[in-house]
């Protein structure tokens, strides 16, 4: 079995995993078993596989939310470890979109989107300009002042996408971003995702069960039992 997933596309490698192992319950549950992975700038990579195969865990390691037991993960050639400034990574280098939108219900769409800019200390005018740009692209301009409860599922997920991109990250990590949406909303969100990735030069790593959507990415990787492989097409 091929346990490596080196990029066949030429370009600058922005995300790299080398022989990454991860387990829970003091090693009792091995989730990742020697993952090698590379993604280049502007590439859209889909990770497919059954539930529990380690897709979300891998995305968490890529975003610095967790650290591997063994091996190393690097973003822009800098290893993610305890010495690294993880705040800078989360604020400026990666953005997350989850299956559940994870928005704060009492805030408006606009306020939710501005949260990463508040965290990063970006001035309000710059943040507003960026939000205006993203809201227009995602078709949410007319909903900026609305509370999250008033938005549809698709609109909520588009809001989450805007929020993830507010600080212009170079890497977007999407964990089942269309998993809780119906077919049409799912198509809209995924189209937007690919469109923004293409125009902003963002590297997308997306975990998904939907093979139809996955097939539209630049690369499709299969994960099974904590290992990764690039399927024969």
């Amino acid at each position, binding site marked *: 079995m091929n346990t490596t997933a080196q990029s066949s596309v030429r370009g600058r490698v922005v995300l790299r995993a080398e022989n990454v192992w991860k387990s829970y319950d003091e090693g009792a549950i091995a989730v990742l078993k020697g993952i090698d992975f590379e993604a280049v700038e502007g590439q859209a990579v889909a990770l497919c596989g059954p539930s529990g195969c380690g897709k979300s865990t891998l995305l*968490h390691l890529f*975003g610095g*939310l*967790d650290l591997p037991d063994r091996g190393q993960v690097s973003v822009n050639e800098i290893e993610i470890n305890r010495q690294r400034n993880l*705040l800078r990574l*989360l*604020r400026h280098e990666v953005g*997350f979109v*989850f299956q*559940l939108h*994870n928005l*704060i219900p*009492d*805030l408006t769409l606009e*306020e939710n989107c*501005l*949260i*990463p800019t*508040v*965290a*990063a200390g970006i001035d309000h005018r710059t943040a507003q300009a960026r939000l205006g740009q993203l809201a227009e692209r995602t078709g949410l301009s007319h909903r900026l002042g609305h509370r999250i409860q008033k938005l549809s599922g698709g609109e909520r997920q588009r809001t989450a996408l805007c*929020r993830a991109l507010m*600080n212009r990250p170079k890497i977007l990590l999407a964990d089942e971003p269309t998993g809780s949406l119906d077919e049409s909303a799912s198509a809209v969100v995924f189209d937007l995702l690919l469109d923004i990735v293409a125009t902003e030069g963002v590297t997308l790593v997306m975990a998904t069960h939907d093979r139809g959507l996955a097939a539209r990415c630049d690369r499709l990787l299969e994960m099974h039992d904590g290992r990764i492989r690039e399927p024969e097409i």
Partner: protein
Amino acid sequence: MIFLKLILTNLRRHRIRSLISIAGIAFSVAAMLTVVTILQGAIGMFSGILSSDSEIIVFERNVSDLFFSNVPAAAVEQISSWPMVLHADPVLFGIVSSADHPIITCFGVTAADARIRKATWVEGDRRTFAQHTDDVVLGERAAEYLAAALGSHVQIGHATLHVVGILKTANGFEDGGVFMPLNSAQSFFHKEGSSSVVTIKLRNKDDAPGFKQMVHAKFPNLIGLEDAEFNRSYSQFKILKATAWAVGGCGLLLGGLGVANTMIMSVFTRIREIAILRVNGFSNLQIATMIFGESAVVSVFGALVGLAIGTCFLFMLKEVPALHGYIDVTIQPLVLLIVVVLALLTGIAGALYPAVYAMRIRAVEALRFE
């Protein structure tokens, strides 16, 4: 602005819980303000009595309470004759009671005493004071609650006394008290030939150290203290102040526990939300500031409501007849500041554990909870 909204969001989300916490702090602040103000007022009034037209007070050394102090008449006479002394006024303190009023402060004074000389005589003439042994002069409030008028007789303790005057003074204790001629008071309290204290007015204030030394040399069992010195060192004042702050502090501690409970619940119910803030780049400091901010809002609102309740309560107490003359509703700015700062510190202390807990939330673990 968004940060502020994040702070207020949770308070709005759980309105009842937030209101209960605010009420907890408010009642604690009200209790502290009331107790401290009443006692500070009482202390202020009592020290005002002692410093009336005088700079130094002479009393028996090592007594725990001035009511137990005995200054012999011979000492008063000798001190009065010292050249540096302008006048020396002996005062005998006692507590008397009447039918409906268990505590009335009684002052045994001479006709020359500043309390009699400088008071505004609402009724009667000060020249009539001390002409008969059963004469008594009432403070205006005392006359009011004893329903006494000029020329009437009032039952005070075991004696029936003749009201020869009603006077008004700025001091609540004096206004709610009764004044007897010194000799009558000595006989009434079985303290013939002695007074509780002697208040001294010097010709020149600079002579105060010399005067105190002379008292120490001539009367080793007496002590002379300047007014400010007395207020600082009198053990009863110290005990009262410490008690007031301790009682108020306990109240505030209870309020603080309420805030802690609210903040713990606040953090526990939004672990996932805090995790999302972390994923979006919130630092430990920003998370902690959010939690402390929330508790600060509760504390500040609680303190403001508590100050309003406490002030209203003090004004209500002032109107209670049995407490006439004993409550001075002057809220000192320093007391106000201390109460507000303590409320704020209590809120911050209450948020300490919740803030630490929130800072330790690991996004990766919290996100696993659906």
